[in-house]
């Protein structure tokens, strides 16, 4: 569904992404983890065609989008929903206009129909209809993220969802809500998802598979069990601050798969 082949990406002289290849299958949730500034968000931009790789190829549904013109990319992007870091809501538009943005721009639907769709979507992401006329500035961080998710979902009914740090800066309760929402999105339509995060707990809750990026290089690609069992110094160092989370998952894995924590 999504395939990156030997991606290299430079901004000026800075080498951002170094020879990264990865694949995401239909219905799979991949979590890209790594330190801040390691190039995780850049990978999402490359998948969406917002940035062009210096070398390497990007495939969406086996279509090579690497050298596509912007006009052609717009068609590809219709299959992809993107939730940007901190929401990236249009701050001069109301919540309703934000959520219904795609329909307002691209469809010939009546305003009343769009409004109905917007309300349904707000209800789906667990937001009250009263906030429809509020500006993004008047919402909490968690509400803004949910509006951003609603906007991405209503836009194109996407088959691929990309999330850039969807829970960063949120309190535990709001984080849980967002995580549950992301899981809820995946199920009915077998949506493929990529979640970029440095919140290990969320990554373990959401992902079927993990890719770890360090200094723009892919240093791990595999499931949670292999990640926890890795002896790679960078991975161990990255996971160390999250020991309690990791231990909790080791216990769960022990119960489910007979995984032995001492093997780490």
């Amino acid at each position, binding site marked *: 569904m999504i395939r990156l082949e030997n991606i290299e990406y430079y901004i000026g002289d800075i080498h951002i992404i170094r020879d990264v290849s990865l694949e995401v299958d239909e219905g799979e949730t991949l979590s890209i983890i790594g330190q801040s500034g390691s190039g995780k968000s850049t990978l999402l931009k490359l998948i969406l065609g917002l940035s062009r790789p210096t070398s390497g190829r990007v495939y969406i549904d086996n279509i090579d989008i690497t050298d596509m013109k912007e006009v052609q990319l717009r068609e590809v992007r219709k299959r992809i929903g993107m939730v940007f*870091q901190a929401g990236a*809501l249009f701050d001069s538009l109301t919540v309703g206009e934000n959520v219904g943005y795609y329909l307002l721009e691209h469809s010939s639907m009546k305003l009343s129909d769009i409004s109905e769709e917007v309300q349904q979507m707000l209800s789906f992401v667990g937001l009250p209809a009263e906030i429809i006329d509020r500006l993004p500035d008047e919402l909490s961080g968690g509400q803004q993220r949910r509006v951003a998710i609603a906007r991405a979902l209503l836009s194109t009914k996407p088959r691929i969802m990309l999330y850039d740090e969807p829970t960063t800066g949120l309190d535990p309760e709001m984080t849980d809500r967002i995580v549950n929402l992301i899981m809820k999105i995946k199920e009915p339509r077998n949506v493929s998802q990529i979640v970029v995060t440095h919140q290990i707990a969320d990554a373990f809750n959401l992902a079927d598979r993990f890719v770890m990026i360090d200094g723009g290089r892919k240093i791990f690609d595999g499931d949670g069990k292999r990640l926890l069992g890795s002896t790679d110094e960078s991975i161990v160092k990255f996971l160390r601050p999250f020991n309690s989370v990791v231990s909790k998952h080791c216990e769960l894995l022990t119960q489910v798969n007979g995984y032995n924590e001492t093997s780490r």
Partner: protein
Amino acid sequence: MFTIFVKIEDGLKKFIWELQQMFFFSLKMISTCFGRPIYVFETFEQMHFIGIGSLYLVVLTGLFAGQGMAIQFSYELATLGSQNYLGRILAIAVVRELGPVLTGLMIAARVSSGITAEIAAMVSSHQVDAMRAFGIDPVRKLAAPRLISLIVMVPALTVIADAIALLGGWIIAIFIAHMSSTLYWANVLDRLRFGNLFIGLLKPAIFSLVIAFIACYKGFTTRGGTRGVGASTTSSVVTSSITLLIVNFLITKLVISLFAGYL
């Protein structure tokens, strides 16, 4: 010594590269004005912001600049015994130079800063990326309405500024120079010929392009968060003001060289 040459070379390369990027961006902006979708609401919204929003600025500038010039001219002409020519000289000065340049500079200060700051803030908060992700061409959506609005509004505001400046000159002519009102307006109308009016409208039309290209380019190429937004906005105002004065000189020189007999 060698380092200085390397720095100059790097600076020149950067300047030429930037100029080239701005040129391609300007071409893209022009091309997005044609074809669909046409953002009519956004265009009228911008016309309101640029036109109505700048009206008070242009009226005040025109009035006081016209009066100031009229006082200067009337004293100087009085020493030559030619005070009756105040209307003629003021009309030429206002319509050919003062009106377009002052209006252009005022719009450059007020509007280009607004355009750059708004677009730069959207770039910085990934709203422009979000637009692209939703299949919307941000240049068509954000830059084209501003370009069209400036092309319509800058000449219109210049005409208003010219009229107000000439009115200011009339007040000075009546109450300070003690001229006859009829003589003043007869002189003014005598110089409002096609050539002068043409140059007086050509300039603001070209200034509007300069302001739109620079303001939008600076906005879209912003880097570096909040500080970057501030830097782009300042750079936009400074660049557009200086470019506008250079372009004004070039147009004046070109028109005088080619059409001196018609002015």
